[in-house]
């Protein structure tokens, strides 16, 4: 009697578990319609507004909207309409979400995503439909590598671009044996590959590569493993909540004092408040930094600080540059957003005087930009050097 009931219960529980996996959170579709005389330019935002990457989605949205607001809330003389869609950083829903924006809402340009897995799904649709897409974050190499296409642009970085300069920096600082640790997903693996490429080219050795299941943040066992290996340094790529947790745990177990922590800039960007004391002294490389102190950067920081409560981070710069790119390109086409033959060359020829420094676009539509060496000092990612000037991503496998 009881056995049968429990068996039924177990079955139901497993069913429930399965349903929980299957049931998908309904994406929130917020449509804003502003009555304008001219038909508005339609921008589709496909960014994460929920989950671990929600803060990144918010920053990018802020930056983008700020750039367009500073341009009088118009692009090429036309008002702007945003179609906002929560990507949930869910790769499995990416193709249908992108299709909905392109075919359903008929947006002129899609801006997104944050997560590289989602980018893969979006690129498929971009290939089929020829829709113009500006990637304000996702750094998978393929987007401007073997999957590059004329209608896809990127205003952010590639994993390789941000991590490659760190390999030489690590070697020059006397590190010979390094452990790398990251999440087991494309972005993380590409990042540590970029580091390893230049580190082993310089003569160093990666003694162990640890891949943590995504989005696991129980780091304690791995840190114990690292302590038993005793490397010269640890190179890591984590972002968002995982990065906060990793840096704090790294300090907590006392590794911070014995094994220097190097990382991609995403380790500390936007996370310093949460990381606090534990982040002090960490070296990272990234395409943006605190203390660049150019006029453009100062003006941007001032405007951003006035407009938003959120602290400024690199993601906001990437969003801002996506906005500036649209501003320039649509000025050039006289507000024509539907003629792709005119808009694509206009976007490709954009030259940005960005808060991060000068940015132009390579043949693969990827930013050619400076990569800075930064050190965490007093809760800021203070620039201490340019690790690589006007670095161009090799765009491996791109034929366009």
């Amino acid at each position, binding site marked *: 009697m*009881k056995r049968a009931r429990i068996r039924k219960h177990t079955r139901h*529980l497993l069913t429930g578990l399965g349903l*929980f996996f299957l049931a998908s959170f309904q994406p929130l579709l917020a449509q804003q319609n502003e009555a304008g005389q001219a038909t508005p330019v339609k921008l589709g935002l496909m960014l994460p507004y929920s989950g*671990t990457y929600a803060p990144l989605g918010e920053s990018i949205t802020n930056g983008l909207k700020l750039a367009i607001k500073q341009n009088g809330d118009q692009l090429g003389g036309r008002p702007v309409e945003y179609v906002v869609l929560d990507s949930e950083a869910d790769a499995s829903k990416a193709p249908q979400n992108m299709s909905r924006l392109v075919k359903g809402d008929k947006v002129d340009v899609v801006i997104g995503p944050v997560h590289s897995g989602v980018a893969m799904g979006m690129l498929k649709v971009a290939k089929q439909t020829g829709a113009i897409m500006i990637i304000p974050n996702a750094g998978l190499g393929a987007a401007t590598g073997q999957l590059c296409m004329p209608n896809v642009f990127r205003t952010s970085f590639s994993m390789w671009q941000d991590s490659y300069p760190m390999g030489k920096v690590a070697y020059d600082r006397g590190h010979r044996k390094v452990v790398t640790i990251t999440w087991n997903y494309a972005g993380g693996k590409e990042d540590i590959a970029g580091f390893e490429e230049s580190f082993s080219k310089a003569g160093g050795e990666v003694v162990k590569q640890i891949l943590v299941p995504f989005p696991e943040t129980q780091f*304690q066992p*791995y840190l*114990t493993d690292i*302590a038993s290996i005793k490397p010269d340094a640890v190179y890591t790529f984590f972002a968002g909540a*995982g990065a906060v947790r990793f840096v704090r745990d790294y300090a907590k*177990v006392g590794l911070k004092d014995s094994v220097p922590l190097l990382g991609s800039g995403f380790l500390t960007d936007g996370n310093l408040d949460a990381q606090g004391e534990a982040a002090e002294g960490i070296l990272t490389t990234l395409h943006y930094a605190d203390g660049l102190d150019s006029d453009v950067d100062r003006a941007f920081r001032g405007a951003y600080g006035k407009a938003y409560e959120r602290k400024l981070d690199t993601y906001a710069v990437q969003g801002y540059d996506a906005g500036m790119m649209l501003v320039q390109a649509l000025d050039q086409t006289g507000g024509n957003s539907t003629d792709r033959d005119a808009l694509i060359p206009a976007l490709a020829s954009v030259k940005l005087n960005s808060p991060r420094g000068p940015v132009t676009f390579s043949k693969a539509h990827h930013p050619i930009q400076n990569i800075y060496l930064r050190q965490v000092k007093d809760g800021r990612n203070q620039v201490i050097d340019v690790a690589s000037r006007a670095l161009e991503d090799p765009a491996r496998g791109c034929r366009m």
Partner: protein
Amino acid sequence: MDPVFIAIQLLNGLQYGLLLFLIASGLTLIFGIMGIINLAHGAMYMIGAYLAYDLTLRTGSFWLALLLAVPIAVVLGLVIERLFLGTLYRRDHLYQVLLTFGLILVLNEAQRIIWGSDVQSVPVPASLSGNIALTGNLQYPVYRLFVAAICLLVAGGIYWIIRHTRLGIVIRAGAVNRDMVEGLGIDVRTLFTLIFSVGVGLAAFAGMLSAPMTSLYPGMGDNILITCFVIVVIGGIGSIKGAFLGSLLIGQAATFGPVLLPALASVIIYLIMAAVLIIKPRGLFA
């Protein structure tokens, strides 16, 4: 790995397992005794963590925050049970899945509205912020040991109540035959409200204890929910002993798995669940 590091890994696994038990015990009680599948259990873990964060900010003391947050979480559980679950006891489990899944969405959205989507963290309380040096270059955070000790105490407390008190007898009887217990003049409805509130209160309490060890972010309860369901299935539904041993097992698996078998890191707990179900289809102790 040398023996010292294996010992530390065992400690890591034990500490994680004990924390999982706090969450899984409530889940298994609610399911085993009341027959309610509560998918919102993980969301309560998240709410607990955010309550701890919020109240620590307001009061400036983590301990005071704990003191205030526990009753808030229990009352929230009480309200949920009274408002939503009362009509679902006699219904099919799928109705409960639907309702509690809706609760996840509501609680996740409420979290975003109240606390925003930024990653937050809670400083470790000063009195426990030290480390114990275990080996040359590795220290063990005192706070983690404290959490392990608290979880052990709570586990012991639950066991004692279920096994050695009148309330425990009633709870066990209610699980087996609700009608008979009601026939003896015991108010099962109130009993259920109590179990549910305490159960989700435990999940929230686990969230509070985790807050200084983890990062707070929207949806942080979803992964832990799945892990705890796996524990409940392994241990056998409604079995506190099963939940306890299941938690310790999964704690160790989640610790050693990724280090020893990196290729299987993300599926190891499901493999264990599958293996257990093949050998014992009702879990280990049901």
